[in-house]
């Protein structure tokens, strides 16, 4: 019987012949990421009474949430991480200026096809964009893996999502995923590995693949995966990673899937996730006109270079609506450098946006929070009650194009109106 990507990649990381969905096995992750939770891991390690680490080369630490520190407590936590990384010789340590862990690690060539990665952030599924198996875990799990090298993992069932392209104009990977989450619900992929296939996915940019895999988490997924191809290899080559440094893993033709879902890209329109769950999804036509107080373009879902370029293309020559705050938070320092160089930074400033330092920012409730009764349209991946300030505020989720159009009008707006004008 054929094997899925998840079955193959987990068998490899466990050092066993083969693995089958449902099995619980001990897996040795290739990379162990901890972000804002790093200090908790260090404190837990102290409690264990050891400082002997299995393999320091497999550890990455990124200070992305609450950066730079806004309280003395956070500053002390970050100081602890800095000192720990230095004393242990952790060379994949990224300080508060670097940006969001997922994006930074991918940009720097630390994520490669065929790897298994664990991270103290649920959206670690994003690593599937490069044909790797990434998954979120708790800080105790990271600490235990630092010490032992392995972690218990269940081999997941796999769901095949076939996305037929091309998409209709003005729609993006974000819209594909919001529609999917709305259709199959926020637990439709619980403990599953989501494999993305189909003509839309082939040849898609790594950035859009990141959006697909990032949001797979909102289906409850354990892993997400896009088969590596020329696009993957070119992305890695740009980062100095050569083909002999990774192993591409593909599912067998006759792999067994628990479900196959087909998405017709041409039928899609921009989608909005409404408060307070990610699967409360409506087509934009049903929500257009909803007044907003704030627009946030940021997060690991949609603050990469081309997300910002797409938003800026719509904002160019327009002003943010009076009374609306537009907050733009680039995903990484690399993204920030690029938008400064090619003028996108200035386009945002001229439109009336405020730019913050790279990192998780408002998505993690760190700055850009809301008062009672306020509404934000955000490009992030979660709209839970109280996530951005008041428990009595509302978060709507949409694509960067929707965010830009909404910032200009001050109400949730279909971006196609701006594409039409340019045509």
């Amino acid at each position, binding site marked *: 019987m054929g094997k899925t990507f998840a079955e193959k990649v987990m068998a490899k990381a466990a050092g066993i012949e083969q693995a089958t969905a449902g099995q*619980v096995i001990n897996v040795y992750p290739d990379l162990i990421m901890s972000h*804002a*939770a790093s200090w*908790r891991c260090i*404190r*837990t390690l102290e*409690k*264990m*009474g*050891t400082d*002997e680490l299995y393999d320091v080369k497999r550890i990455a630490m990124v200070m992305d949430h609450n950066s730079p520190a806004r*309280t003395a*407590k*956070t500053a002390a*936590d970050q100081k602890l991480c800095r000192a720990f990384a230095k004393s242990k010789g952790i060379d994949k340590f990224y300080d508060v200026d670097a940006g969001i862990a997922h994006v930074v690690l991918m940009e720097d060539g630390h994520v490669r096809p065929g790897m298994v990665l664990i*991270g*103290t*952030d*649920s959206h*670690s599924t994003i690593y599937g964009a490069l044909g790797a198996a990434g998954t*979120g*875990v*708790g*800080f*105790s*799990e990271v*600490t*235990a893996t630092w*010490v*032992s090298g392995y972690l*218990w993992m269940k081999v997941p069932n796999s769901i095949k999502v076939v996305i037929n392209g091309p998409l209709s104009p003005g729609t993006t990977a974000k819209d594909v995923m919001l529609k999917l989450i709305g259709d199959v619900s*926020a*637990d439709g992929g*619980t*403990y599953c590995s989501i494999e993305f296939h189909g003509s839309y996915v082939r040849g898609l940019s790594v950035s859009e693949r990141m959006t697909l895999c990032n949001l797979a988490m909102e289906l*409850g*997924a*354990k892993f997400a995966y896009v088969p590596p191809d020329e696009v993957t290899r070119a992305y890695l080559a740009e980062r100095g990673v050569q083909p002999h440094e990774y192993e591409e893993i593909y599912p067998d033709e006759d792999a067994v899937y628990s479900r196959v879902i087909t998405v017709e890209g041409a039928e899609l329109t921009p989608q909005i996730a409404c408060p307070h*769950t990610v699967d409360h999804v409506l087509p934009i036509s049903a929500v257009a006109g909803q007044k907003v107080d704030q627009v946030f373009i940021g997060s690991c879902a949609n603050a990469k270079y081309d997300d910002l370029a797409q938003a800026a293309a719509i904002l160019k020559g327009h002003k943010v609506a009076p009374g609306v705050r537009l907050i733009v938070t680039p995903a990484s320092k690399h993204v920030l450098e690029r938008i400064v160089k090619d003028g996108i930074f200035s386009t945002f400033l001229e439109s009336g946006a405020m730019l913050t330092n790279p990192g998780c920012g408002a998505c*993690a*409730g760190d700055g850009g929070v809301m008062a009672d009764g306020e509404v934000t349209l955000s490009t992030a991946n*979660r709209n*839970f*009650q*109280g*996530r951005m300030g008041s*428990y009595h505020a509302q978060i709507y989720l949409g694509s960067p194009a929707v965010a830009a159009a909404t910032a200009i009008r001050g109400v949730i707006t279909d971006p196609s109106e701006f594409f039409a004008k340019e045509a």
Partner: protein
Amino acid sequence: MVGGTCIKFGDSINTDVIIPARYLVSIDPQELAEHAFEPLGEEVQNRLRQSKVVVAGVNFGCGSAREQAASCLVGAGIQVVIAKSFARVFFRNSINTGLLAVECPDAVEHIGDGDSVFVDATEGTVTVGSDTFHFEPYPESLRKILDAGGLIPYVTQHVVAGRR
């Protein structure tokens, strides 16, 4: 056998509701417990502290990978969570922090808010009054982690101790 009075919730209770991000500055279960379910108001919080069992619908603990969503319940004195289904990371974090997480949709349908509920993890049973419901007991590897009191005590006993 563990259990006692339960507090019952509906579907899709997410981690931001269980423990809002602003309180992740702590890893102390007791301290965290003070803010567990804060978005749902004081009455729910008081009832939580008087309960031994949390009962919930589908996809309990969806959202963040924050382990504190499990450990804050431990801090509040909860011994077991029974749900129709769990989000993946919450389920893992429960086992790893030594909190029993039991998937038993039939039991959840039957249990009323405030009922006395008991769980036998070895046998795989949920008992409510005179009714008994069955669930698949954990594989041995996970039982060992729970028996040790969680993943950290387990690795300390099995890996760190072996190196000394």
